[in-house]
């Protein structure tokens, strides 16, 4: 047993010596290699030996040693008790530590399959063995080695067919009985974790000979993180080797094959037994479509698990013995629609059950609504559930429960929060038994319903509260169910289920991929031929091919892609085959609507290396980098311009329309032929159109027009789809453009959608690679006629929305928040939340709440729905850019209806989301993959990108200037660590300047440490200083100026400590909220464990709050310096003087009350303060121009202050408004009566407060004239006396001026020079 201090010393010594010991050992192994060659060649040269064990082949790479050292250090740190995570017996920890200390750090890299012929057939998986690498082909071991929780090693003779638990039992049966998990390091380097207890047993691979197994007893004090590190470290050791004589005999117990828990649907579609739900939830991405029948009910359910902890779905329920009242023919039985949701509260563990809470029919008519809390515990093949249900599922009423359950509203569709978990409740529960063989599941349950309070007076006879049933898993994705419910009624069901996140289709219909060779052509090709080949391979139209230096720039016109990276790879393959050897990079510029939206840059050498061999992790670089489109520079040479690109483009397709669950028929459908076309007038101006011809439908049944209390903007659905078979759903002219780097606009006009035509425009702010974007659209539209030809109906409106798009970064959730005016002239908000899986499939839900009341909205109360979007790329054998959208919306109503815009800027600028590169096909099923690529049931938690540990070849300053490869390498290394918007500049003062952003590594100082470490390793050799400006998208947050680059490098080399570095770092904080307590503490940090992004971290206090607090503090300080006597004197005189005009102005306004021009001025003037406030907020938010942003903050804060101050002053002063008729001198202080809230004018105060900072900052005095329009409007509308508005102006101006003064940059000292023993330091602050 070592003391912590002693342990540290031993650890240091051990670590310091291990590197050389490792190489000493490695190089002394027989079979060590010298020449650079393919591993397949090396394997073929080895003498055939029956003892050789290719599965345990070790490919050892020196550059991997550093990262494995980090792993080992973290492990030893935990075992030494320094991080306090290990609470195991210290003797056991000591034994484990002592043993681990004897193991070398090998640098081993797993090999996909150590089979020479397989590697030759899969050259991209064939490693190249460099002279410094070592390859070891071990002898076949006979044992597996169990590392026990006591810190001992227990070799056990291998026995085929045994799972890990058998080996654990062979070593220590008592400990094995209490083990929950077994971690396995397979001899090929794969790491696995499997459940081995009764509650979590799962299908698993058996350990191969030479495997390491770690399976400590539960509650023995070994945390999961340590277990994970231990097994990952053991995997670097290669096969466990032990003398056979020392090994425990092979397990003698019967061979068992474990299976995992099967989760199946109940009658209502969710995971459960028969009628009752369970706490189980299918894995994230599972979609289940099921149908069940228990007379008189039939359920058709669609359930999705967007997360492992949530299940939600939509249902149609048919009640066969009750008529659909709205059906005029009376033939159709009653249909009910409903939403369900279930949330896991607690995952199952050894001692605790899984607990979930759920809501059934939560926002429908409420006929079958109910809630439940249920717990599940598994014991081997049995899965037990027990819970309490309220509402329909708990109608038996075992308990009286709390409160009373209210009846649902007749409109349905509302969330009846006051009824949830109220009224009588009943016990529900049961058991599921999984028969051997995975095919059959038996179910027995206690139903909580007594069927004597059935909705629509439809009580059923119940002979028994116990229901029984079985599920037969007929195929992998199909379950058939049968059962006996209520003791007297048969149940039949079928469920189709699959994983949306694993949806993928091999692209068999695409052209075959080009083979990739290491060599490059010597001469330039015919670029037109290259362009044609690119179009053939990737389907993209080349517009330009240009060359600048060693970079080939290819511009694509309106490229479309589902999986961008697939297209990028195909284009890169063509260019690598054809482009001359002197080209080192390919930049693909994506041009949409005449705008260069973004570009992907492919580093040729890296891309080729990644495709023709397996590289060790430390040598893998980012082959493709996404960045904002670079401007066209004058030294760019044009190699090819596609002048002959056709202006007219058309495509034929089939459209399908359906209306489900209506009163006329369960499904009303139409299949039609659709011809879409585009006529390009210019790059930025084009005409889109679509003509549709109905082919097959059952619209003869479609007779029902839904009633409505709002303008009929959507409920003429029947008329629109049935009036004419030949329609023109869309014909519109579009024009798009770019205002500045991150601002875009789109103007359009014509027949915008099936039901509306008109004109509109959209503006969007979207910084490159930002998680947020903001769009505002405004449209003046008129309802089209039912024929959908050129004519219109009478209804017109102006509609538009401000939409915030937010990629939350939390579990791939994207939020869209929209606020604005809808087609029926109702105003409100739409919230849309979705999860997008890595294969592009997304599932989501939305709702809209507007000023239209539930009664006005009608059935459903408000608009809502769920949807599934599936890229065609995930379903079709040919690459296709489209997306199949399936939206399930209970009803089509008029409230909350948005204009269906065919083209949006968010879609046009899609390439600015650099995460598009991360959307790729789901991996093939495990059976089709080599072992290394298989999806394991467990994988180590997502890690932060590894820090730059490897030393790269550095350039001299001249070489750096001449060859931009070095600069690009640095960008690549930073990009690989999730830095975005990276800008690199090496200036004449030999200072390396970096500007970059990173929203993955937190806190900011840790990210800056990573960037500094990378820069110190890769900067030109004569770099004097390194300056890093860290950004949030495009807003600079902080600048770290390392004025002595050599000292920084010495710090990262461990030659000096942080204290010696501190004096050479200047930190300038640009955004007050970005200030950290200790901004240097994490500079040398190597942590790779990602802090989970929790919901809490998403709603944590944003930096803007700190900024506003800072600004207000500064404003208060500035206000303290104001000569108030003079200010109040001048202001008071102005107000008093202006009061002389009060009566005259009032009379004038009264006499001109009917003047239309005057009314127009009033409308504009009344809107100015609020439009100005919104515009100022936008200017503040948009960080593209720091001066504008700063002024925007000042104006917004001043406006808000003026609003609050005047609101507070009005009731205190209590001046009568002109229209009260009490005269201008009538006061009623301290009143809340709005008729006496005349002084001062709030509108004018806000208008002047917002205008003043901009007017002062930009010398734009005309802005005061704009603000004065509000004075005219307020007096003209007779809401205020003239002097009220003058007082408002004075207050607004004063507040605006204070905020502007306080926001101006403070003059700082100029250059400073310091001399110390490390050199001369020059610093310049501004």
């Amino acid at each position, binding site marked *: 047993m070592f003391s912590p201090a002693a342990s540290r010393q031993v650890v240091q010594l051990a670590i310091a010596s291990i590197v050389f010991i490792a190489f000493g050992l490695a190089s002394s192994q027989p079979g060590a290699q010298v020449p650079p060659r393919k591993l397949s060649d090396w394997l073929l040269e080895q003498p055939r030996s029956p003892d050789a064990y290719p599965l345990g082949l070790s490919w050892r790479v020196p550059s991997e040693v550093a990262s494995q050292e980090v792993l080992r250090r973290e492990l030893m740190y935990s075992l030494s008790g320094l991080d306090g995570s290990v609470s195991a017996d210290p003797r056991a920890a000591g034994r484990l530590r002592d043993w681990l200390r004897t193991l070398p750090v090998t640098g081993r890299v797993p090999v996909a399959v150590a089979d020479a012929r397989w590697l030759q057939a899969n050259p991209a998986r064939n490693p190249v063995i460099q002279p410094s690498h070592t390859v070891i082909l071990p002898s076949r071991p006979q044992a597996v080695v169990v590392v026990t929780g006591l810190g001992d090693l227990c070799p056990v003779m291998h026995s085929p067919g045994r799972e890990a638990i058998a080996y654990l039992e062979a070593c220590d049966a008592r400990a094995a009985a209490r083990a929950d998990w077994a971690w396995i390091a397979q001899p090929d380097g794969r790491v696995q974790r499997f459940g081995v207890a009764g509650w979590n047993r799962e299908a698993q691979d058996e350990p191969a000979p030479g495997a390491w197994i770690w399976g400590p007893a539960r509650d023995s004090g070994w945390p999961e993180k340590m277990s994970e590190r231990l097994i990952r470290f053991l995997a670097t050791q290669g096969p466990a080797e032990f003398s056979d004589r020392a090994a425990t005999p092979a397990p003698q117990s019967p061979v068992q094959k474990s299976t995992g828990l099967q989760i199946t649907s109940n009658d209502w579609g969710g995971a459960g037994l028969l009628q009752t739900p369970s706490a189980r939830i299918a894995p994230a991405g599972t979609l289940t479509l099921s149908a069940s029948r228990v007379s008189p009910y039939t359920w058709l359910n669609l359930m999705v698990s967007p997360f492992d902890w949530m299940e939600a779905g939509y249902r149609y329920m048919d009640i066969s013995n009750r008529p659909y009242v709205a059906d005029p023919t009376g033939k159709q039985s009653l249909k009910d629609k409903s939403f369900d949701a279930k949330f896991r509260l607690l995952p199952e563990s050894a001692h605790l059950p899984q607990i979930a809470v759920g809501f059934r029919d939560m926002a429908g008519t409420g006929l079958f609504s109910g809630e439940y809390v249920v717990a599940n515990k598994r014991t081997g093949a049995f899965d037990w559930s027990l819970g309490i249900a309220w509402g329909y599922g708990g109608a038996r009423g075992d308990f009286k429960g709390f409160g009373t359950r209210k009846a649902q509203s007749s409109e349905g569709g509302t969330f009846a929060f006051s009824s949830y978990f109220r009224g009588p409740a009943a016990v529900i529960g049961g058991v599921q038994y999984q028969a051997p063989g995975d095919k059959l599941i038996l179910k027995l349950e206690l139903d909580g319903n007594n069927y004597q309070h059935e909705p629509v007076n439809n009580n059923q006879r119940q002979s028994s509260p116990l229901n029984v049933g079985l599920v037969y898993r007929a195929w992998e994705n199909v379950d058939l169910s049968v059962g006996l419910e209520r003791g007297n009624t048969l149940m039949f069901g079928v469920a189709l289920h699959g994983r949306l996140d694993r949806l993928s289709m091999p692209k068999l219909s695409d052209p075959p991929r080009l083979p990739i060779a290491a060599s490059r052509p010597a001469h330039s090709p015919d670029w037109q031929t290259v362009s044609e080949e690119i179009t053939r391979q990737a389907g993209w139209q080349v517009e330009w091919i240009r060359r600048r230096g060693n970079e080939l720039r290819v511009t694509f016109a309106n490229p479309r892609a589902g999986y961008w990276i697939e297209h990028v790879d195909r284009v890169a393959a063509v260019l690598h085959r054809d482009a001359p050897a002197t080209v080192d990079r390919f930049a693909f510029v994506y041009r949409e609507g005449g705008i260069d939206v973004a570009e992907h840059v492919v580093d040729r050498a890296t891309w080729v290396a990644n495709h023709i061999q397996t590289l060790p992790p430390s040598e893998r670089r980012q082959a493709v980098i996404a960045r904002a489109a670079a401007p066209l520079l004058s030294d760019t040479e044009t190699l090819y311009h596609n002048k002959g690109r056709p202006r007219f483009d058309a495509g034929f397709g089939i459209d399908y329309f359906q209306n489900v669950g209506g009163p006329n028929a369960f499904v009303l459908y139409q299949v039609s032929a659709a011809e879409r076309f585009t006529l390009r007038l210019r790059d930025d101006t084009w005409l889109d159109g679509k003509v549709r011809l109905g082919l097959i439908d059952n619209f003869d049944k479609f007779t029902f027009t839904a009633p409505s209390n709002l303008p009929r903007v959507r409920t003429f659905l029947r008329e629109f789809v049935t009036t004419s078979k030949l329609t023109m759903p869309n014909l519109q002219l579009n024009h798009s453009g770019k205002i500045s780097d991150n601002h875009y606009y789109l103007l359009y006009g014509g027949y915008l959608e099936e039901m509306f035509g008109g004109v509109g425009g959209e503006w969007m702010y979207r910084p490159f690679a930002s998680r947020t974007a903001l769009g505002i659209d405004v449209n003046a539209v008129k309802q089209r006629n039912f024929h959908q030809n050129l004519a219109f109906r009478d209804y017109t409106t102006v509609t538009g929305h401000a939409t915030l798009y937010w990629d939350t970064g939390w579990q791939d959730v994207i939020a869209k928040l929209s606020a604005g005016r809808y087609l029926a002239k109702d105003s409100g908000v739409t919230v849309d939340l979705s999860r997008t899986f890595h294969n592009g499939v997304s599932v989501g839900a939305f709702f809209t709440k507007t000023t239209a009341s539930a009664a006005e909205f009608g059935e459903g109360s408000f608009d809502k729905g769920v949807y599934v979007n599936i890229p065609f790329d995930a379903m079709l054998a040919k690459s296709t850019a489209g997306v199949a959208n399936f939206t399930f919306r209970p009803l089509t109503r008029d409230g909350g209806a948005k204009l269906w815009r065919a083209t949006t800027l968010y879609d046009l600028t899609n390439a600015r989301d650099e995460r598009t590169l991360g959307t790729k096909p789901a991996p093939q099923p495990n059976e089709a993959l080599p072992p290394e690529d298989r999806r394991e049931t467990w994988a180590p938690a997502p890690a932060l990108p590894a820090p730059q540990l490897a030393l790269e070849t550095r350039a001299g300053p001249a070489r750096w200037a001449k060859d931009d490869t070095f600069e690009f390498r640095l960008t690549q290394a930073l990009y690989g660590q999730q830095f975005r918007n990276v800008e690199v500049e090496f200036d004449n003062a030999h200072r390396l300047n970096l500007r970059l952003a990173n929203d993955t590594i937190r806190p900011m100082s840790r990210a800056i440490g990573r960037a500094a470490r990378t820069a110190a390793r890769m900067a030109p*050799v004569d770099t004097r200083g390194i300056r890093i400006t860290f950004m949030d998208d495009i807003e600079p947050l902080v600048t770290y100026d390392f004025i002595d680059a050599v000292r920084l490098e010495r710090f990262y*080399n461990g030659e000096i400590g942080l204290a010696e570095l501190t004096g050479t770092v200047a930190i300038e904080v640009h955004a007050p909220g970005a200030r950290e307590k200790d901004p240097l503490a994490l500079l040398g940090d190597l942590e790779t464990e990602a802090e989970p992004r929790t919901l809490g971290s998403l709603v944590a206090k944003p930096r803007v709050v700190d900024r506003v607090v800072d600004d207000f503090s500064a404003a208060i300080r500035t206000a303290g310096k104001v000569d108030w006597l003079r200010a109040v004197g001048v202001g008071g005189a102005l107000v008093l003087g202006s009061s002389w005009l009060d009566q005259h102005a009032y009379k004038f306004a009264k006499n001109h009350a009917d003047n239309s021009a005057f009314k127009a001025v009033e409308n504009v003037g009344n809107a100015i303060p609020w439009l100005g406030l919104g515009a100022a907020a936008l200017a503040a938010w948009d960080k593209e121009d720091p001066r504008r942003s700063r002024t925007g903050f000042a104006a917004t804060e001043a406006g808000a202050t003026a609003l609050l101050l005047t609101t507070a002053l009005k009731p205190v002063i209590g001046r009568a408004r002109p229209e009260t008729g009490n005269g201008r001198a009538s006061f009623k202080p301290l009143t809340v009566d709005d008729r006496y809230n005349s002084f001062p004018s709030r509108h004018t105060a806000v208008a002047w407060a917002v205008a003043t900072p901009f007017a002062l900052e930009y010398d734009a005095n005309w802005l005061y004239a704009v603000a004065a329009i509000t004075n005219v409007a307020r007096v003209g509308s007779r809401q205020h006396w003239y002097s009220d508005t003058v007082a408002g102006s004075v207050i607004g101006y004063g507040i605006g001026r204070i905020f502007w003064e306080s926001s101006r940059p403070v003059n700082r000292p100029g250059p400073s020079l310091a001399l110390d023993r490390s050199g001369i330091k020059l610093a310049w602050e501004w």
Partner: protein
Amino acid sequence: MRVRALMPMLCFVAGVATHSALAQDKSGARDDAQSFARTLTEAATWAAVAIPGVEVCKLMRIGIAERDWIRGVVVDIDKPYIRVRITDAGRFPHDLDGTAVSTGAILRVAPTDWTPCKFD
């Protein structure tokens, strides 16, 4: 009773001991971080530099501000050293471990402090 009387003193002693241990841990952790950084650098340097044929360079300082770079090519590995043939001895005279640095000379040096580089 006597034990109870001793409790405050025992608590004090335990507190001092704990404080000292924590202080030692803290300084130990700092030392550990620095020595570990050295270990990582050694491993990374060895992986990058200990390859015959690699061009390497080393920063030499003269006084407090003047910098000079000497360059060479790794010709042999002699664990834990490398042999470097000097191709550019820099603008000023230098010596490494008492051996004068001159163009063409082959020096047996520790790989740390050398970095792979390309100048022209």
